[in-house]
């Protein structure tokens, strides 16, 4: 197919004079689109009223737990597809991967429309959950290694920008869906089906902007006036490790624990942000204000992705995660003390949670640069894809842990404020586990390096296909 050959890696090599500052908008187009997944909750109530329109009809309409599986399935597929297709992406190139992501993500909406039309939930599981979820995974990792190669001088900043887009995607997806559903709502339809069609089309067009704009740097390219440091930090490798080999290194699993603990602790707040602020400050914070608090947290989650990933370019990835885990553990421990029974200071509570959420976002955004420092640029997208299984694990572990502890404490007669204290102290403990894992991260042993031939884009040596024999 000559038309589709446009998507091939060799056809997306940047011509001389191409500005690298065109690549972050291309990456943002993908991440701002797929970040919509975090706004899926706006469809939850409408999807439970497809028959009843104004209220659910028992026995005919779907229940909220049934509908909640759509989001869970999409997140699980995100992790699985990122882990599975990461290696393919390295050879196919970012343009083809972004195109595949756009097709899958949009198709997820279109297939789900059929599910709404025929009132068959399994079609939505297949559409948004499975097909759309594959698009999420492909889209999430597709720009990572390209950005790192274009910005060898600022890998944290560049990947932080893209991953910030994923945090911001929900901010676009949520009001967009609400406005579209209001527009398409009729006395006989809740408007979800047509909203899915329009969103699928809009997101496809927006993602195609990224597909057409993205370029990979040509062989040997480096930023104007930049030279790779002659002697770099021991924690930043000048070598490359193959994805299958990286999977066997202790560094990969230590970083897996680092990401998993950081995400689990963050989910501990996200899961219960609205009820927590209302329970800790009884009478002072009403549900409307609590919804505003959740909005504020999402702004800090997004901003933290850019801020902390950029900071990591200056202080190093390991030091950045040390801040997340040390400061985070202290703040989680102190957070219940700000409540109505102790200091009774909403301002302090809000400030602390905003800092914690900025570090939660920062953990996501800094990990690609940490992987690049450890394993080189050669397979960084594929390695990142596999590491995202830590996110999927945390996505299950976090809510499970929070809800189990909460239920057990309430059953034992502990009051609500006391329950939060226990949960947050356990989250502080998880961060200490992350601290130890980060402490144990050392440079990858020479036996895992790929054999080198020449210098590759971004000043990193290009590996040959032959690996240095292990041991």
């Amino acid at each position: 197919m000559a038309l589709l050959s446009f998507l091939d890696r060799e056809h997306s090599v940047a011509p001389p004079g191409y500005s690298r500052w065109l690549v972050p908008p291309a990456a943002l187009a993908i991440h701002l689109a797929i970040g919509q997944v975090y706004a899926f909750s706006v469809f939850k109530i409408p999807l439970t009223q497809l028959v009843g329109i104004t209220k659910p009809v028992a026995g005919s309409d779907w229940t909220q737990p049934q509908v909640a599986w759509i989001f869970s399935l999409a997140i699980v597929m995100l992790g699985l597809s990122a882990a599975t297709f990461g290696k393919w992406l390295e050879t196919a190139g970012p343009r083809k991967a972004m195109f595949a992501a756009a097709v899958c993500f949009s198709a997820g909406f279109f297939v789900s429309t059929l599910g709404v039309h025929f009132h068959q939930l399994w079609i939505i599981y297949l559409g948004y959950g499975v097909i759309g979820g594959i698009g999420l995974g492909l889209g999430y990792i597709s720009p990572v290694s390209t950005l790192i190669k274009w910005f060898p001088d600022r890998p944290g900043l560049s990947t932080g920008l893209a991953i910030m887009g994923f945090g911001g995607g929900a901010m676009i997806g949520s009001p967009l869906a609400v406005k579209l559903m209001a527009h398409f709502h009729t006395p006989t339809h809740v408007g979800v089906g047509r909203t899915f069609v329009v969103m699928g089309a809009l997101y496809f067009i927006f993602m195609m902007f990224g597909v057409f704009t993205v370029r990979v740097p040509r062989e040997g390219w480096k930023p104007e006036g930049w030279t790779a440091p002659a002697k770099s930090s021991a924690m930043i490798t000048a070598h490359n490790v193959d994805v299958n080999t990286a999977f066997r290194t202790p560094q990969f699993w230590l970083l897996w624990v680092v990401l998993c603990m950081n995400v689990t602790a963050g989910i501990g707040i996200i899961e219960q942000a609205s009820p927590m602020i209302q329970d800790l400050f009884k009478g002072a914070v009403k549900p409307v204000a609590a919804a505003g608090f959740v909005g504020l947290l999402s702004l800090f989650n997004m901003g933290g992705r850019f801020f902390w990933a950029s900071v990591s370019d200056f202080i190093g990835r390991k030091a950045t995660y040390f801040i997340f885990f040390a400061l985070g553990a202290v703040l989680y421990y102190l957070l219940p003390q700000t409540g109505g029974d102790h200091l009774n200071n909403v301002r302090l509570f809000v400030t602390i949670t905003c800092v914690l959420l900025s570090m939660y976002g920062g953990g996501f955004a800094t990990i690609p640069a940490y992987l690049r420092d450890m394993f080189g640029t050669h397979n960084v997208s594929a390695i990142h894809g596999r590491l995202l299984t830590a996110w999927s694990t945390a996505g299950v572990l976090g809510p499970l842990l929070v809800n189990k502890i909460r239920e057990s404490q309430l059953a034992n007669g502990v009051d609500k404020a006391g329950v939060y204290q226990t949960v947050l102290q356990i989250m502080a403990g998880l961060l200490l586990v992350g601290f130890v894992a980060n402490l144990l991260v050392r440079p990858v042993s020479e036996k895992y390096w790929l054999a080198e031939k020449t210098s590759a884009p971004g000043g990193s040596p290009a590996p040959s296909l032959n690996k240095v024999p292990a041991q």
Partner: protein
Amino acid sequence: MTDQSTSNVKKSSPALILLAWIVVSIPAAWGVYNTALNAMKLFTQTSTTLSGQPVK
């Protein structure tokens, strides 16, 4: 090889770069604006504690 080392190359137009950033900034700014409006409710609909006074 750097862009500097290649003479007579056609560099990406600054207008094109600006346009690319505008394409992604407009929806992002719209989303942030909507979220910020929502977040303001925390400051407008919470009792005096946010201004430093303890809630009784």
